[in-house]
């Protein structure tokens, strides 16, 4: 059920070692794939890992930060194991996505953009997912939940919580 990315303690350089080994001549031109790999390994882009990456690749720290803050896909703060995205495009809005967003807020106890204290979920809203035929749509990690209703929110979220418990 979805990819599970846990936040690792950021001073662990081993995943970075592995990434840089697999991309031995990585420079400015490979910055985006490098950042993606680091985010995959660490769950977000930790400052000290990026500083170390800068030292080893010679890419200026400021350049790294500029790129990391430009793209929506990169996170500079620890991220939940699961990402919940709710669409608030026109079609979804008409079909009641604002109610779903409110329910998610209540269930998770965080505003859009926030991460739950137990690091289980990061909650985001999206301008349009481009899946209007399924409106209203909610996505958890890679899984789409079409024709959502606010009543189903608890069930969906609980299934992820349950899975985490079993894995632990």
């Amino acid at each position: 059920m979805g990819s599970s990315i846990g936040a690792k303690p950021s001073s662990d350089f081993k995943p970075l070692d592995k990434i840089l080994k697999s991309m031995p001549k990585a420079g400015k031109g490979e910055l985006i794939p490098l950042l993606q790999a680091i985010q995959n390994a660490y769950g977000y882009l930790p400052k000290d890992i990026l500083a170390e990456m800068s030292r080893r690749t010679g890419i200026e720290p400021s350049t790294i930060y500029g790129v990391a803050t430009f793209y929506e896909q990169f996170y500079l703060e620890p991220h939940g194991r699961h990402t919940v995205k709710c669409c608030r495009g026109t079609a979804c809005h008409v079909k009641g996505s604002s109610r779903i967003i409110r329910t998610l807020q209540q269930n998770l106890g965080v505003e859009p953009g926030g991460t739950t204290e137990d690091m289980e979920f990061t909650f985001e809203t999206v301008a349009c997912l481009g899946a209007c035929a399924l409106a209203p749509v909610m996505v958890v990690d890679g899984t789409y939940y079409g024709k959502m209703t606010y009543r189903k929110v608890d069930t969906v979220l609980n299934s992820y919580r349950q899975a985490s418990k079993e894995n632990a």
Partner: protein
Amino acid sequence: MSEITVTINERRLTGRPGQTILELAADNGIDIPNLCHDPRLTPTGACRLCLVEVEGQRAPVTACTFGIADGMVVRTETEEIRRLRKTVLELLFYEHRGVCTTCNEHGHCSLAKYAYEYQLDDGIFQAGRAGDRDENCMTGNEAIGYDVDKCIRCGRCIKICEEVQMDAALTFKGRAAAVEVSTFFDIPLNESTCELCGQCISTCPTGALYERKAEGKGQRKDLTRTRTTCPYCGVGCQIDLNVNTHTGEIVRVTSPVGVVPNNGNLCVKGKFAMDFVADTRRLTTPLIKRSGKFQQATWEEAIELIAGRLREIKANHGPDSIAGLSSAKCTNEDNYVFQKFIRAAVGTNNVDHCARLCHASTVAGLARAFGSGAMTNSIAEIRNAGCIFVIGSNTTEAHPVMALDIKQAVAKNRAQLLVADPREIDLARFAKLYVAQKPGTDVALINAMMNVIIAEDLHDKKFINRRTENFDALAEVVKDFTPEKAEAITTIPAEKIRQAARIYANAASASIVYSMGITQHTTGTDNVLSLANLAMLTGNIGAESTGVNPLRGQNNVQGACDLGALPNVYPGYQSVEDENIRAKFEEAWSAELPQNKGLTVIEMLHAVETGDIKALYIMGENPALSDPNLNRTRKALEAVDFLVVQDIFLSETAQYADVVLPATCFAEKNGTFTNTERRVQRVRRAVAPPGQAREDWRIISEIATQMGYPMAYDSAGEILDEIASVSPIYGGISFKRIDAVGLQWPCPDKNHPGTKFLHKDKFTRGKGKFHPVEFKDPAELTSGKYPFVLSTGRLLYQFHTGTMTRKCSAINQVSPAGFVEIHTEDAASLGIEDGQKVEVATKRGKVTTLAKVTDNIGKGWIFMPFHFQEGPANMLTIDELDPTAKIPEYKVCAAAVRKISSAD
């Protein structure tokens, strides 16, 4: 095709290949509005204001990025273009709050200028992100401030930081409307790679980036600008002191693009460290020490006392019992008058200054090899050198604006940079090859390089035959100096020495850049001679972008030497021991002059111990902190019968004085400084002196007159004219000729254009002379008790004894205290952690400082900056001298380091 014809606004113009429309227009006085353009930077086309119409193009193009082509037809001011530009400006104002009334830049802001020109609707000015004033990476920084609401995201600050300063401290953070300029993870500026050069402010087209100190001190429109020469290092940057005429205060320092030699670039000291001028601790009246305490005195009292005491000492002990220290901080005119006073009024050649402590070995060594002891080539030539060999110069810290040229040469012109330094200095990251020689082993490295060059037949035989002498003797000495032998001495792998030799010898043009890492040794003259040998061996001298280039430390150390503040020469390096020359000066100065050369700086202080020197007159120097072996130096200052100190602050040295005289600083006087490339440049008065402070030359003239040797000048210009009349190398130099751009000596007559590089067809001494040099150990070697090699040096943020820089809050914020650099492994074995208190000791003394643990220094070697009076490095340094140049060995002595435990 070398010429391109372009029609702009119906005018036929001729341009060069590679030019942009904007550049061609600017060359021909056609103003195309722009906000993101700076000639120092690669064009971006980000602001969209320079849109022009080009026939055949479907849409308007940005003039700053669009290259010219033959037959091109451009229109810059059509109705459509003006309408578009107005829209662009309106859009910019959606991101920029129009708060001109409270903005520093008011009166100089490009955005406001265009808003007026294009008559934007008033309503637009408050459209910006009003009130959005979150903290940013510059909040709390004492030097630079950033107001995001005034930023138009042109990106110039980011580009200048990356392309010119090459620090890449800044970036755009975020996207769309939220974009702002920031550092890596928004860390405070002083923790980033920023060097506080302030270039970002200099290029900002609005008031978004500003000098923190200038806030509320006067808007740009209310400031008068006076062009003068920076008072810090020897590069001689041209600066404009922006003075608020109502308060008489220097509000900010700027430098326009295009000035020689710095092209609008400045470093942190030139840009920000001018607080000292208006510091309340400036000396404002003469002080006389009575029963151990300084009391204010009138000028009449002070001058009478000094003249009386000097006359008395001269009568009782002879003129050679008096000695004077002139100053590399003072103007050429001050120095000329000072040495004339010592020679003609006092009657001794005991005059010297701190050049003795920095480049005496350069003057001695290069004079022997080439015939004149100065930088052979010009700063600008560095940019086109094929190879740049930097040895014993931490250029980015000690000559920051010169370092920009070295970095440009590598980045833009693919120069091959060789760096040899015991510490992995910042320039090493630009180097093709970096080698770390053990401190004090430079001769071994250079001899081995020459061994390789001769063995591999890379030397320039034609040059050697035609232009030099004594080559065989050199070849004989370096014959056995193999890289393997040098490896054992320097610790540099033999293969790297070979590589270095090949890179240097094979370059189309190679320029040697060195500084005190070469000169401050007991073998300083040998080191300089070795570099001269290396240059002559490969024919890298007497031509463009080659040469042996000593970077002089003080703003006017070149000038102080040129003007004869040395014990063996009159102004213009004319020997005091030459009868004909002496006769010339006796006639010019109407005085009988002494025949023997005088004492050097350290010799003077040592002569106090023996009772030979009874009186010292010190103008603008601080030996109580700058001289080696401070315990001994300070005892001498204490012991001397009569000590006069003339300065702008009550320095460490002034504390020992019997009389202290308040002098004007660079911003309060007229005159000239001569920079490291022999360029004589103007110093201009911009503010009034504090209290009763007077120009140095005026004070000296009055004392001389009181002593019975009348000296009277109306102005500094009059002194410069006298200098020109007695010193042939300055023969053609006058205030009038250097009003816009300085002239480089030798400039023998009024029509001479100055000399860009020396020794073109002929060396000053005729033929260049090889001086074979054997390797010698430093004076003090490490031992069981003192196992570390200690070197001292400079920091970017400080200057010399800190008398000026440490009065600046921006500097104190970033560089509050001294330290000792020690290798990670050495620190670990001594149980020392970064930032911990440690004691550094040598045979001569011990000091407490903080450990800076680093991998950038070799194992067994340590480094301390000498700027700090708390824990002064010169308590530790050795006062052994180079036998020829009498320069002390600041760069090598044996030291011990220990952790200070809480019990201490």
